[in-house]
């Protein structure tokens, strides 16, 4: 397109260009809601006899320039296949032929406009349409249903969908959520097919939910990973039970675990009780041990036992151990994610080991040095490690400041005192033999302080 058009009144030109562009876009979009009920015709009387024998359509309707087009039926719905595709393609149409609802594959469609569909082949399979796995009906399943807008992080309701016929392929490009489209759908027939792009969301930013969306899609996770866990948690809290379970089922366990850690406690508990125990166990196994324990504490005994029994061995041990401690002791709030280094390892080896633990980076702020018996020697902060000579033995770093350690049975008050008086970002929990079993980070203390024992704080955040 020529861009530099010399003009005396550029603003008018620009405006006109914009209007023309808008119109061009509008004319290329096909409104799905407007397409429903439109005629499906067979071009130019080819094999008219065969179609005529199939059903009593209006034969030989005469339109300007189109003599002898035969109406085969009316559009009922648009079928797409979404799995694995970024931009879903239309695979066919459901067409009412006489009293039947037949499936017309998209390869038989020679032209699709907002007002009509023209077929190139008369070979109609007039068996009643039955949805196959992975097929999504745009009118039946998507329009008027709730969708997740990933970019806007909100639940929207589709008032229309737009198709873009590009060559032989017809793609689903956008979701309309505007009011005008709703009014258009209620209005007279001839305005219904005119696309009214107003608040359109790109389909690539949309995640479906509910029964159809629950079909597990690879795409879902890729797209949903763009969301922060807190936003995902927000969305989960906004949805109804069915959709919520559908969405959780379509998430990878690690993604679900991140979101669950961010959810409000009661909502999270509810969700864990709603979903199948195996699924809940898979999600809990991906959570940080202290968060997992906290979630499990809130469940009733049966549900908890069932989930624990299905947990993988590694996380089960940690969770069972943590559940054994009282909620208001050091053991009850510590995390069991620990990095330990034996005397004799070099700083470089330790740092390399840390590289595999990025998933736990929020729980690691120091490395424990232990002797041959596993007893705690020192707690080396990541800073000390970073500035140390990489070939040095970690034991050379052992020295003051000495680690602050408490026993797992230490009451919260003791933990708080220990943290307050030493100004450390974390303290170590050791068993009776002096072996480290957990770590309490400042944010765990903060959590415990803002909530638990009422005598610690005035009433905050009550609603």
């Amino acid at each position: 397109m020529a861009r530099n058009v010399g003009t005396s009144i550029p603003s008018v030109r620009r405006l006109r260009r914009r209007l023309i562009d808008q119109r061009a876009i509008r004319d290329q979009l096909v409104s799905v809601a407007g397409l429903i009920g439109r005629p499906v015709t067979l071009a130019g009387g080819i094999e008219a006899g065969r179609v005529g024998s199939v059903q009593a359509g209006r034969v030989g309707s005469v339109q300007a320039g189109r003599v002898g087009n035969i109406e085969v039926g009316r559009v009922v719905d648009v079928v797409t296949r979404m799995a694995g595709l970024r931009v879903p393609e239309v695979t066919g149409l459901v067409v009412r032929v006489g009293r039947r609802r037949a499936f017309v594959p998209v390869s038989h469609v020679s032209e699709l406009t907002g007002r009509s569909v023209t077929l190139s082949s008369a070979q109609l399979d007039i068996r009643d349409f039955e949805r196959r796995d992975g097929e999504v009906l745009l009118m039946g399943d998507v329009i008027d249903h709730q969708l997740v807008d990933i970019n806007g992080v909100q639940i929207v309701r589709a008032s229309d969908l737009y198709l873009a016929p590009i060559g032989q392929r017809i793609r689903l490009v956008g979701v309309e959520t505007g009011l005008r489209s709703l009014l258009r759908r209620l209005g007279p027939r001839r305005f219904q097919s005119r696309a009214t792009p107003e608040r359109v969301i790109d389909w690539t930013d949309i995640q479906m939910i509910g029964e159809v969306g629950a079909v597990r899609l690879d795409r879902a996770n890729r797209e949903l990973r763009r969301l922060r866990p807190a936003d995902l948690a927000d969305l989960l809290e906004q949805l109804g039970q069915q959709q919520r379970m559908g969405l959780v089922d379509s998430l990878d366990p690690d993604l679900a675990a991140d979101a669950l850690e961010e959810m409000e406690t009661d909502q999270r508990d509810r969700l864990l009780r709603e979903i199948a125990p195996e699924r809940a166990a898979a999600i809990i196994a991906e959570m940080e041990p202290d968060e997992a324990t906290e979630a499990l504490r809130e469940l009733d005994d049966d549900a908890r036992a069932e989930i624990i029994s299905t947990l993988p061995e590694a996380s089960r041990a940690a969770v069972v151990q943590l559940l054994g401690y009282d909620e208001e002791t050091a053991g009850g709030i510590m995390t069991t994610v620990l990095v330990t280094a034996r005397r004799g390892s070099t700083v470089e080896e330790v740092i390399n080991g840390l590289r595999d633990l990025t998933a736990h980076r929020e729980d690691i702020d120091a490395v424990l040095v232990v002797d041959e018996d596993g007893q705690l020697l020192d707690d080396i902060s990541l800073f000390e490690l970073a500035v140390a000579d990489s070939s040095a033995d970690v034991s050379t770093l052992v020295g003051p400041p000495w680690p602050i350690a408490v026993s797992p049975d230490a009451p919260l008050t003791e933990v708080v005192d220990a943290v307050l008086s030493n100004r450390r970002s974390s303290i170590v929990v050791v068993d009776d033999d002096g072996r480290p079993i957990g770590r309490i980070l400042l944010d765990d203390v903060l959590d415990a302080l803002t909530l638990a024992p009422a005598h610690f704080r005035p009433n905050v955040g009550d609603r």
Partner: protein
Amino acid sequence: MKPARNRIPAGIRSRLGRSRRLRRLAGVFAILGPGLIAANAGNDAGGIATYASAGAQYAYKTLFVMLLVTIALVVVQEMSARLGATTGNGLVSLIREQFSLRVATFSVLCLLVANLGLVVSEFAGVGAAMELLGVSRYISVPLAAVGVWAVVVLGSYRYAERVFMLLSLVFLAYPISALLGHPKWSSVGSQTFLPHLSGNKEFLFLTVALIGTTITPYMQLYQAAAVVERGSTADDLRAIRIDSITGSIFANVISMSIIIATAAAIGGRGPLASAAAAAHALEPVAGKSAETIFAIGLLGASLLAAAVVPLATSYALAEAVGAERSVSRTFRDAKLFLGLFTVQIVVGAAIALAPGNLIKLLLNTQFLNGLISPILLTFILILANRTRLMGANANKPAFRVVATVCTVGVGALAAFVAVQTVLGWFGVH
């Protein structure tokens, strides 16, 4: 560190310094509520006028109808609560999703008409109450309209809501009044539990008005929306059910005691002439100040409903266009809904000021509701029957029969009376 989030994270709220058992209890109370509020909203200006009319004109004869209506109300409110909890969607959104946009639009239009009728009746209630206190309705109704509008749009609605509710608590005096007023308990018993109906045209009209005021369309909408907004889900279904059932029964115990108290005071002396006559029913409790007490209660109930009902209409429209989340958060910024709210208040107050008998006007708006509620009931029934939508929470066969009988019964009666009324206009009897 976790990403920042502008509310208290799970870990913090989880312990909040209370023991876990206390928290569980608090959970039950948090859910207890919407059912009680929804059902008791039926005892608004129109409700009181209708029940008092029933008691005045037919003494205890309508009590059996009220028994049936109570059963229907329990069934309907329970279904609405279950729909909301299971699907996480309000009724209008469900209708749009499960039927079509057109059907949803139709229901919103029905609701708009029914609710506008209600708003009229609430302002008529304000007028009647203030006239008892010696203030002309031409002063009190416009003031009330401006006041309600300002409180909802500009002010602190939560605070005002509590004041209105406190005022309307005065109506708890009715059950006491019914006990102290020496009603004929033998007739009360027989008229409540022995099946009877009257083919009398006026009696049937009143029956439809009773249904309309007790099973008001917006109550179902409110019930479902409140359950959704509170984030209650199918897991809390037991608590939600108990709430909706006890709420409905409690509301109708009050309604029936209004009928009984009025019947004992002025029963059988013909149609209710004025609000002052209705106030006689409170004399056993309040003595000489019965009129004042009655006026205060009526004022509170009317103002509360005058604010809630137009809000409910706006919410229904918001659901239909899929904007309910944003409306429940920022009502003031949503021009469409604010406009609709304003129009309802203005039109409602204006019609309530039209000259004529206020009690008659109140009865007519309840009758209109009685005609519209079967339409919504049908949708609710179909939705609650759908296993595809409700899963294991869909109506069970036995419940389905009861709910169908209720819906068909209410619908048939409404249709019969509607046809009779229309024929009456053309002189056919």
